[in-house]
């Protein structure tokens, strides 16, 4: 562990199996994951305590406690600082994109520290290796023994990853922040710091530590009435032995966790002061507009820059391998000059691709699999083909990044969900050592997976353009049309499902064959229902558009397939869809509980206005289980309208209820825009959609009321950023079937 003039020696101790780590200990097939973490602590310049927790397996030397090597701010790169003025400053290795996780994670730390919440300040950790959140991986490992999220497989290859790469993840995705970093990192940091503060007070007051109590950033000794603030004790506390097994609270001891607290990032967002990537402004900065090949894989073959360079304010036309950019004094000038160009791109042999040819290729891949055989003894068989389109993330803030290449260094200002990997991409693009690249991560105007690992084309472009106009900084902004046409889309998937039913309509078998490239999708495709013979298989179709992680990833597609198809089975059996599901879920009490609660909230079976019907779906994703009931009507022009959604959620523990609620409500609205409207189509190799008019969003006028209730359970804490999304499409489709008799098996839902 490094030592320096600002921080005194930091000590490292392995942490044993505290309550918070217990669940993380499941061994996967690789057997390399351990439950050990390291705590280090030291003194701050000017007094105070600094304490951090790191994952020892991933990064044995990660707990360096030292100041910034440059900039001279003296900020220490660890998780908690307690300063003599009694402030608690917490640095969190996740980005804020509206999910409120920073506030929630800080609450978990504060709970264990027994600090005064009003004295806690939150910082987003810098994009440096010291902040890498190995704990994120642990959240996934915890869930299924050894299951890695889809984005991860694409980023590194399922078999080829290295532990070293894992250690360098500082990403925000997979609904992992609270259940990973919060549960397994921050709580331990808070508990360890509290024990050191108690030890310090015991020495100062010369009393047994058992007689002390810690509360609201103060340690008190009841018998003598003496007390001291954490700030007063922090410097002494830093000399105390770091506890290797800090005692963690049980959930019934929580005072702060479970109460609604305002988010730290909101005040700046209502006055226009919050700085997003697109808002970064540097002295002497230029602006760039860019057009990449409209066909993926295409390269820039030629461009006559004269029409642009003749225009006022234009500095440079920059040719990249697959794009052309115009750099000007202002963005409007740059975009107008770009529009004046007629760049020619190759079509990478994809000029004939269309949604129809893509669909045909998927069908052909599935056809090779063959239909399979029905079980003997089956009274009937139900089979159906489902299909979902490519989808864009369409974050409201288009992709943008600001970069400066000067003095042998490259600096990047952008909003990403994974700043460490973005930094690596930038380094590669300008052929610099990664240590010479500084990533200044900004707030995100929406992420939803678009700004995750493997989707950093905008970073790469910006640094290349900056290199071309070095040393001046340049801010590159994508037009909405560029953004819509150059996504990392949710994959197009065709799925064939089949089930043999016995004479009572119970499923004897469940077969799912779907197109996709990811092993991990199998989990999402597996029904939770008690079915003897479940057979899940994926076939790999040819790839066309670039694909990526889209809020709730494979669950958004397979949630639709599974929960629509089980509804088909219920109707084929002539049974109520809720009763049918429940009869197959007796082994899954948490599923049953959310299902029963949601239908109760929605008054399932109760009277409805003329022309309305209800549909239901229940999906487990990212450690949480959500049942949603949608109340739906079909207008005279066949518009599907959703009036009300009732959602019951089991994420085990709700940290910040008011925030948890909005994640579910937002997830429902996000999923509903996709269910009713969204489709990315391809013509002549090019994405056809351009902007919001042809990729419409739910707005206030058609946003349904979403009632949400949480059910507490004892399980490991579940994620909430994504699980609200998957159930809504099947819930609506199932209601539409009741209303019209039409089983809509293709998204977006459109009535014939």
């Amino acid at each position, binding site marked *: 562990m490094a030592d320096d003039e600002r921080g005194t020696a930091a000590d490292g101790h392995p942490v044993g199996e505290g309550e918070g780590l217990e669940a993380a200990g499941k061994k996967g097939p690789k057997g390399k994951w351990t439950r050990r973490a390291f705590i280090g602590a030291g003194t701050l310049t000017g007094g105070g305590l600094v304490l951090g927790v790191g994952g020892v397996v991933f990064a044995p030397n990660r707990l360096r406690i030292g100041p910034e090597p440059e900039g001279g701010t003296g900020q220490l790169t660890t998780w908690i600082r307690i300063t003599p003025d009694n402030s608690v400053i917490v640095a969190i290795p996740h980005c804020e994109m509206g*999910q409120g996780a920073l506030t929630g994670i800080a609450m978990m730390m504060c709970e264990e520290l027994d600090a005064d919440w009003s004295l806690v300040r939150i910082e987003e950790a810098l994009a440096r290796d010291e902040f890498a959140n190995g704990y994120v991986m642990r959240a996934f490992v915890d869930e299924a023994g050894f299951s890695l999220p889809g984005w991860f497989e694409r980023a590194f290859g399922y078999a080829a990853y290295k532990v070293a790469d894992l250690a360098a993840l500082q990403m925000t995705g997979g609904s992992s922040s609270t259940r990973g970093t919060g549960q397994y990192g921050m709580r331990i940091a808070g508990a360890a710091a509290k024990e050191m503060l108690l030890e310090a007070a015991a020495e100062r007051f010369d009393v047994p530590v058992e007689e002390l109590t810690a509360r609201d950033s103060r340690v008190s000794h009841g018998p003598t009435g003496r007390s001291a603030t954490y700030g007063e004790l922090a410097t002494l506390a830093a000399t105390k032995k770091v506890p290797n097994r800090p005692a963690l609270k049980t959930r019934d001891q929580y005072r702060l966790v479970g109460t609604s607290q305002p988010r730290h*990032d909101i005040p700046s967002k*209502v*006055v226009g002061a919050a700085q997003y990537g697109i808002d970064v402004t540097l002295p002497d900065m230029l602006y760039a507009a860019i057009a990449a090949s409209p066909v993926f894989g295409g390269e820039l073959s030629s461009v006559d820059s004269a029409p642009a360079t003749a225009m006022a304010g234009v500095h440079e036309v920059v040719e990249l391998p697959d794009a052309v950019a115009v750099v000007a004094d*202002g963005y409007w000038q740059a975009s107008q000059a770009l529009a004046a160009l007629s760049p020619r791109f190759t079509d990478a042999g994809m000029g004939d691709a269309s949604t129809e040819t893509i669909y045909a290729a998927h069908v052909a891949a599935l056809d090779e699999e063959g239909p399979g055989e029905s079980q003997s003894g089956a009274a009937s068989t139900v089979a159906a083909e489902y299909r979902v389109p490519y989808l864009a993330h369409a974050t409201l803030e288009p992709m943008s990044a600001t970069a400066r290449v000067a003095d042998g260094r490259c600096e990047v200002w952008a909003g990403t969900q994974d700043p460490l990997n973005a930094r690596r991409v930038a380094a590669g693009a300008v052929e610099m050592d990664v240590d010479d690249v500084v990533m200044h991560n900004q707030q995100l105007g*929406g992420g939803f997976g678009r700004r995750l690992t493997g989707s950093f084309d905008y970073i790469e472009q910006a640094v290349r353009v900056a290199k071309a106009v070095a040393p001046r900084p340049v801010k590159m902004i994508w037009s909405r049309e560029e953004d819509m046409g150059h996504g990392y889309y949710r994959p197009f998937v065709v799925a064939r499902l089949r089930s043999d039913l016995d004479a009572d309509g119970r499923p004897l078998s469940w077969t799912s064959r779907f197109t996709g490239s990811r092993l991990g999708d199998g989990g999402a495709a597996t029904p939770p229902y008690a079915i003897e013979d479940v057979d899940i298989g994926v076939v790999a179709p040819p790839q066309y558009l670039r694909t990526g992680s889209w809020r709730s990833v494979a669950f958004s597609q397979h949630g639709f397939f599974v929960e629509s198809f089980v509804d088909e089975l219920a109707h084929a059996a002539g049974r109520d869809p809720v009763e049918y599901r429940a009869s197959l879920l007796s082994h899954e009490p948490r599923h049953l509980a959310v299902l029963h609660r949601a239908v109760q909230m929605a008054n399932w079976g109760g009277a409805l206005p003329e022309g309305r019907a209800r549909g239901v779906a229940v999906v487990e994703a990212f450690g949480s289980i959500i049942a949603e009931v949608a109340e739906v009507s079909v207008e005279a022009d066949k518009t599907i309208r959703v009036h009300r959604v009732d959602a019951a959620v089991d994420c085990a523990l709700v940290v910040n209820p008011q925030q948890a609620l909005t994640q579910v409500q*937002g997830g*429902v609205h996000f999923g509903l825009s996709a269910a009713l409207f969204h489709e990315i189509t391809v013509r002549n190799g090019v994405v056809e959609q351009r902007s919001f008019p042809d990729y419409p969003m739910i*707005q206030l006028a058609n946003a349904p009321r979403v009632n949400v209730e949480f059910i507490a359970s004892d399980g490991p804490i579940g994620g909430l950023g994504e699980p609200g999304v998957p159930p809504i499409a099947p819930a609506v489709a199932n209601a539409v079937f009741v209303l019209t008799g039409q089983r809509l098996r293709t998204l977006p839902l459109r009535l014939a």
Partner: protein
Amino acid sequence: MIDLTLNGVPTRLDVADGTPLLWAIREQAALTGTKFGCGIGACGACTVHIDGVAVRSCVTLVESVAGRSVTTIEGLAPVGSLHPVQEAWIEDQVPQCGYCQSGVIMAVTALLERDPSPSDEELEATITNICRCGTYERIRGAIRSLAQTTEP
């Protein structure tokens, strides 16, 4: 060169005719609270007030605001204070990513100025801003709580 009143201050912006007001506000006036979302007036992230009326600045040319009064999110309330709508937005914890909210707040303040108790129909017809995070429940709730407090 355009002369206008920007957030109550007489301002001269050195920008060519034909430039959308949005980019003049963001780049020349360095007020980045007004956001770019689509450039075609579809999403509402760029909403500002021109003489008190909510307008989408990405499709408003700068020359059309010469001599007029433009208010952005930064000028909605005097420095150091909050407009009641902004207060309600904090109270009800409306924003998620927050990128659309400057525009939503500008649209809502203009509406409530005109009609302190808008009907559901009026609300839905007027507030057409896109929020990708799906904060509509909280937007509705915050407006309703404002409408109640302004009722006699």
